[in-house]
């Protein structure tokens, strides 16, 4: 019997537990020629704000040892732009669409959540309370406990869609934030966003990113992300979507074992557009080899 990869997460039924991470797979059309979107566990689109947003100046990314630092700055077409241009496209596919949202104020979070909730075809909202690249406010939400709470509460109040706060990689307080999110009614957690980082050009002595700092993603952060998921999983009952440096089924399996119920593939998409599908296929093999009937049997099975 082939192992069962399907899961129900925050009330959403997923064919498999491998999503693509926000900001690394665009809004759908970009990779659609290469990857059958219907086969993804879920499609998490790049962060959407109420109004269109230009993001940061360039350079916006820099490759570093086993990782990438990005400071895109959340460029996006705004809620209306997304609903008009991209959602109809995405609805052609049999895949849950999770919209990553952000705002510069608590009110903006609530407003974009409300606007998107009025549309058909969105499975859940992922709250980016942790993007390290926005100066006006979003940055602090993820590490300021009070703001964090208020953002979740305010969006919770305006939407019936499942809410998935995406935590900042706050290495010492992840359990605290996870518990707070759960208390405020979050349905699941996404852990983790990229880690604040920077790189310097030695010839010009200028930052390699126009935004000075950015977020580190990729294999370099995997051991940090696994640790964050483990800490959070011990602290809460709501499911966790683990991410950070997942390239292979083996990488993903680490996240499940420490307690993630699903995973997302981010930076790896740039190397292998079908990475998420390959991870899902590899997980199936891993489960078979370990005589586990379902991916659910792997979740939280760490023996210490």
């Amino acid at each position, binding site marked *: 019997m082939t192992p069962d990869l399907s899961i129900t997460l925050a009330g959403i039924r997923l064919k498999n537990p491998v999503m693509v991470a926000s*900001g*690394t*797979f*665009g809004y759908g*059309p*970009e*990779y659609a*020629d*290469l990857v059958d979107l219907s086969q993804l566990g879920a499609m998490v689109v*790049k962060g959407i704000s109420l109004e269109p947003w*230009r*993001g940061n*100046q*360039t*350079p*916006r*990314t*820099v*490759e570093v*040892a*086993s*990782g*990438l630092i*990005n400071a*895109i700055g959340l*460029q996006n077409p705004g809620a209306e732009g997304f609903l008009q241009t991209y959602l109809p496209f995405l609805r052609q596919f049999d895949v849950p669409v999770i919209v990553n949202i952000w705002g510069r104020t608590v009110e903006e979070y609530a407003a974009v959540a409300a606007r998107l909730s009025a549309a058909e075809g969105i499975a859940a909202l992922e709250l980016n309370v942790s993007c390290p690249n926005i100066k006006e406010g979003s940055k602090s939400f993820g590490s300021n406990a009070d703001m964090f709470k208020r953002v979740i509460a305010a969006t919770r109040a305006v939407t019936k869609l499942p809410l998935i706060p995406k935590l900042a990689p706050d290495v010492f307080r992840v359990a605290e934030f996870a518990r707070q999110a759960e208390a405020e009614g979050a349905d699941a957690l996404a852990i983790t966003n990229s880690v604040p980082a920077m790189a310097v050009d030695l010839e*010009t002595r200028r930052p390699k990113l*126009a935004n000075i700092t950015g977020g580190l993603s*990729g*294999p370099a952060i995997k051991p940090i992300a696994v640790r964050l998921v483990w800490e959070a999983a011990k602290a809460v009952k709501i499911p966790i979507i683990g991410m950070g440096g997942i390239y292979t089924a083996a990488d993903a399996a680490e996240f499940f074992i420490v307690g993630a119920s699903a995973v997302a593939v981010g*930076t*790896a*998409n*740039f*190397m*292998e*557009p*079908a990475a998420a599908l390959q991870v899902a296929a590899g997980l199936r093999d891993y489960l078979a080899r370990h005589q586990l009937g379902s991916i659910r049997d792997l979740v939280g099975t760490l023996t210490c």
Partner: protein
Amino acid sequence: MQLETATILEHRDYGAGYRLLRLAAPQIAPQVQPGQFVHLRVPRLEGCVLRRPFSVYKAADGVLEVLYKAIGRGTAVLGAALAGEKISALGPLGHGFPLDLPAGRVPVLVAGGYGMAALYLLAKRLPLTGVVFVGGRSAPDILCVEEFEKLGWKVRIATEDGSRGVCGLVTGPLEAWLAEGRGQGMPEFFACGPNGLLEVVGQRALAGDWRAWLSVDRHMCCGVGACLTCVVKLKDSDGAWVWARSCKEGPVFECRQIHWDRAEEEA
């Protein structure tokens, strides 16, 4: 756009510090338009998370050719790939040069560095011949001259140290040629090279009220329009600017589209 496991047919030094990589890529090769690029996964490039973008130099009979220079770790490791090895290629990507020149135009190609490779395919596919201006630091940096001549193109060379062609920047021979009467018609520029060169060509075209198609070189992650790394500023209808993705809407833009603000651009 396809993701293809190509096979390396040939990989060798090409002179001028460049290496030639010939790939059997039967799915991608037939689709390539001049100015488009392929995004290669460098075999055995550990510790790096990105593919590397390269213009297509030649594409025929299911075979792709790329000319590249080793400038960093990715291209250094690529240099060790052997004939017979597999290499994952994503392409063709981006929008290339237009091939439908209005009547009476003289195509003028201006190249720096690997620009010669990118423009070669254009020269081959354009319905008529014209003139190519190529610049470099020194004689050994000048690529593909004979290739262009074989296609019937005139080639004008400038080197900064004067070791080949005119001494100085490529704009010298270009200006001279324009002053001489610039062939039979209205020039239409096609340029590929360092951003500085592109800007000069663009300004010159604007001044002459000609068109200039510029292939911009931006750092890229996804290559398909998803990550928003490679954006350039285009002029907006209302005098402001909007971002365009050079991997998707570009890398070729007409100079009138581009919003130049140097301070904020990449070096």
